[in-house]
């Protein structure tokens, strides 16, 4: 060993009394943490390779395995945490930018957990969702400011294009490339069955999935990978991705090694070439340029599809959103700083951007102050973890939520946060055929449908408790929320009262 050695983060504990040396763990681990010692007929392991994805734990037939945090510690220091010190070692070893995956794991405030929901008592009846209709359907899109009538006085019922969702949740953007074919297929199947939408991300749309177009948002990002006329036509909506909560202001880089076969064809770039998404769109250096892209896409699709503009939640988000609302966009998607990613520079992920709760509250209020809230719908993500988060987001002012991490968890992800390695043992964030096939799209979609169905039930229970029988009446209904343990300033930004007020 040497100065470069960093003690492994996890230990693999094998109960030798239970282990039958069946080698299942060895087969399941793409990181080669487990190996078989033929001579002694025992399993060995190299914990330096373990990422704690729990695959071997889940598949061990005798429950002989567990992964625990290593107790080999550096001397405690409140200023220099072990994590900080180890990152310095890693950078001193490599000279590189640190890479991470999934959302910001640091102990920053989660405002969802400091917001409580109301219920009816006496003066207003709660409604039992098992007995009475309880509506979760939403329409996303621009609402005209004035009712029009024909000459004979009849209502002119034409509306700008709207997205209909059976519940206020969509699967957010994850590109084919960052996740596998089978993961995409699981999302597409589930979205179709659920009457919601999934999002292609920036890697184009595999030709096999055009048939799920009605439940697909096709994304146009700065790399313009896989964007062509049929692609735009294929989706129910088009999303211009300006930024992502996990890495605001940063582009993307899918290494050439991952650009093979179908991914190369779908992205429309040569095999083996790096897929670089520039940090900005090089045809959008200002808000008026955004307007041109919005209308180019509308022209290309004959004004039949709503255009979503997705931005990361950054400091000046209210003014940015107001600009987007006036740019012709039908829907604004805002991604909070806890949003997930397949790979992002650690420092950027952990230090750039603001919480979605504050961004949402500020944007919703700003658009109302300017009288243009109904010109756009608001979709928020990063990170929405449960039906309670959805209800709180809607009551703060969102039209719908984007979920991705929760969806991946349903597909088997154990949040080991090493997507960037491309060796996802759960068949999600990988392109290795032997790993991809571990995720069965039919089984995966079923789990996604289960998760969303459960959330829908819970949303209805919350609404019924508040005496609300349609999700429209919850949107922006901030009186239904109270803060707990928040400062005056935080309450002011969230536009809610403190519990007890």
């Amino acid at each position, binding site marked *: 060993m040497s100065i470069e050695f960093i003690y492994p983060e996890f230990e693999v504990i094998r109960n030798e009394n239970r282990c039958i040396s069946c080698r299942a763990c060895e087969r399941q681990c793409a990181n080669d943490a487990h190996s078989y010692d033929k001579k002694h007929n025992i399993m060995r392991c190299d914990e330096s390779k373990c990422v704690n994805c729990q695959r071997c734990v889940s598949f061990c037939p005798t429950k002989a395995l567990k992964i625990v945090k290593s107790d080999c510690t550096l001397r405690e220091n409140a200023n220099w945490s072990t994590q900080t010190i180890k990152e310095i070692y890693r950078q001193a070893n490599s000279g590189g930018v640190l890479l991470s995956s999934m959302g910001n794991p640091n102990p920053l405030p989660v405002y969802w957990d400091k917001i409580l929901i109301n219920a009816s008592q006496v003066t*207003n009846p709660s409604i039992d969702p098992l007995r009475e209709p309880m509506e979760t*359907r*939403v329409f996303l899109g621009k609402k*005209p400011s004035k009712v029009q009538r024909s000459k004979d006085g009849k209502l002119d019922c034409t509306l700008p294009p709207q997205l209909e969702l059976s519940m206020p949740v969509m699967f957010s953007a994850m590109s084919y490339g960052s996740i596998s074919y089978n993961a995409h297929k699981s999302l597409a199947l589930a979205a179709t069955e659920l009457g919601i939408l999934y999002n292609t991300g920036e890697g184009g749309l595999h030709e096999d999935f055009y048939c799920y177009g009605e439940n697909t948002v096709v994304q146009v990002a700065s790399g313009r990978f896989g964007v062509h006329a049929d692609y735009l036509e294929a989706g129910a909506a088009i999303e211009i991705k300006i930024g992502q909560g996990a890495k605001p202001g940063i582009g993307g880089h899918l290494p050439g090694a991952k650009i093979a076969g179908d991914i190369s064809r779908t992205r429309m770039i040569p095999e083996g070439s790096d897929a670089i998404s520039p940090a900005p769109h090089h045809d959008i250096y200002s808000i008026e340029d955004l307007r041109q892209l919005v209308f180019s896409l509308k022209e290309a699709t004959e004004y039949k599809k709503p255009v979503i503009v997705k931005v990361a939640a950054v400091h000046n988000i209210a003014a940015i959103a107001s600009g987007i609302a006036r740019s012709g966009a039908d829907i604004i998607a805002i991604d909070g700083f806890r949003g997930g990613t397949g790979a992002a520079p650690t420092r950027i992920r952990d230090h750039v951007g603001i919480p979605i709760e504050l961004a949402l509250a500020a944007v919703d209020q700003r658009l109302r102050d300017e009288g243009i809230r109904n010109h756009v719908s608001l979709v928020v993500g990063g990170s929405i973890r449960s039906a309670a988060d959805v209800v709180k987001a809607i009551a703060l002012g969102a039209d719908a939520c984007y979920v991705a991490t929760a969806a991946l968890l349903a597909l088997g992800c154990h949040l080991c946060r090493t997507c960037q390695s491309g060796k996802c043992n759960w068949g999600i964030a990988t392109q290795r055929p032997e790993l991809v096939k571990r995720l069965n799209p039919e089984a995966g979609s079923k789990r996604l449908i289960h998760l969303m169905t459960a959330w829908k039930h819970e949303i209805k229970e919350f609404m019924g408790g508040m005496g609300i*029988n349609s999700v429209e*009446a919850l949107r*922006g*209904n901030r009186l239904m929320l109270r803060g707990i343990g928040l400062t005056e300033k935080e309450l002011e930004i969230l536009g809610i009262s403190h519990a007890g007020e």
Partner: protein
Amino acid sequence: MKIEGQVRIPSGCAISAVISKDGNKMSGEMIINSMKPMHDRSNGLGGGFAGYGIYPEYKDFYAFHMFFDSRDTRKKCEAFLKERFEIIQSEIIPTRKIPEVTDEPIIWRYFAAPLKSVHASLQLKEKEFVAKTVMKINAEMPGVYVFSSGKNMGAFKAVGFPEDVGVFYKLEEYEGYSWTAHGRYPTNTPGWWGGAHPFTLLDYSVVHNGEISSYDANRRFIEMFGYQCTLRTDTEVITYIMDYLLRVQGLTLGEAASVIAAPFWSTIAAKTDLEDQKKHTYLRTMFPSLLITGPFSIVLGFEGGLMALNDRLKLRSMVVGEKDDKVFIASEEAAIRTMEPNAENIWSPAGGEPVIVQVKEGAFS
């Protein structure tokens, strides 16, 4: 303790209304009496009435009914009004001193016409100008409250039981072709005169029984269009929604009812009349934030008519009856029987089914 406007106060209530389809005049006595059998639906913290057709001699002028907390604020407000309106009559609203109603503010009324030059220079239509002025006074002038601002109609309200409030305002001396009434059961209030119903804007008045669960969604939407919900009561927001849908958006009464008490999506999907299905889909998609949920029964008064409406689950009682030229609406049948013992065709309208009664063309003034 916070008063209304600083805090939202839920309340339960009683409502009652009567209209003559022939435009025949009725004194306020009948509507006062209708509230007596529903005494227990109020708790003495608010009662009020609206009468239509009660000011025929001033029918071309806006009748502003106002509360002032002092002579000084009245003088200040009058100076403000005079910059914008020609005031042709200014007087105390006559009241009776009765022990049941005390602590009254200064209660005044003005009959006035907006100065054309002023609203033309602001590029506002006359009604918009009047509405904005009312909003401005109520939001920005402490100690002043405009509680009625329509033509040839007026609201009368106070802290007290409704039957006493009617006596207090001498409503038997007024004659109108339609009347609405309200008794209030707020759950927590120090009792403020402005908080009683009806709530009005221009010639729209609303009496309301219920507590809506969609309140803040509705309020935050409607405030985008210049309305300021200073009282934070359900009735106030419903009144503004009706003004917005009917006057600003130009919807019919039926269409407006379909927005605030929209049929369920499943009901819309089951409609066989495709034109009707399209219309309802459009209205729900266009105005999702104006759907009102939670229990309510309301009577909307307007020039020449009344509309009664229940929430779509019918979580509050409301019955309708008829006799000859008259239509009666109330929280309880007992109220209707008090007005007309031989009332016929008594029925409970279904949730979300508007009952619209209009006076024959030309029969009201």
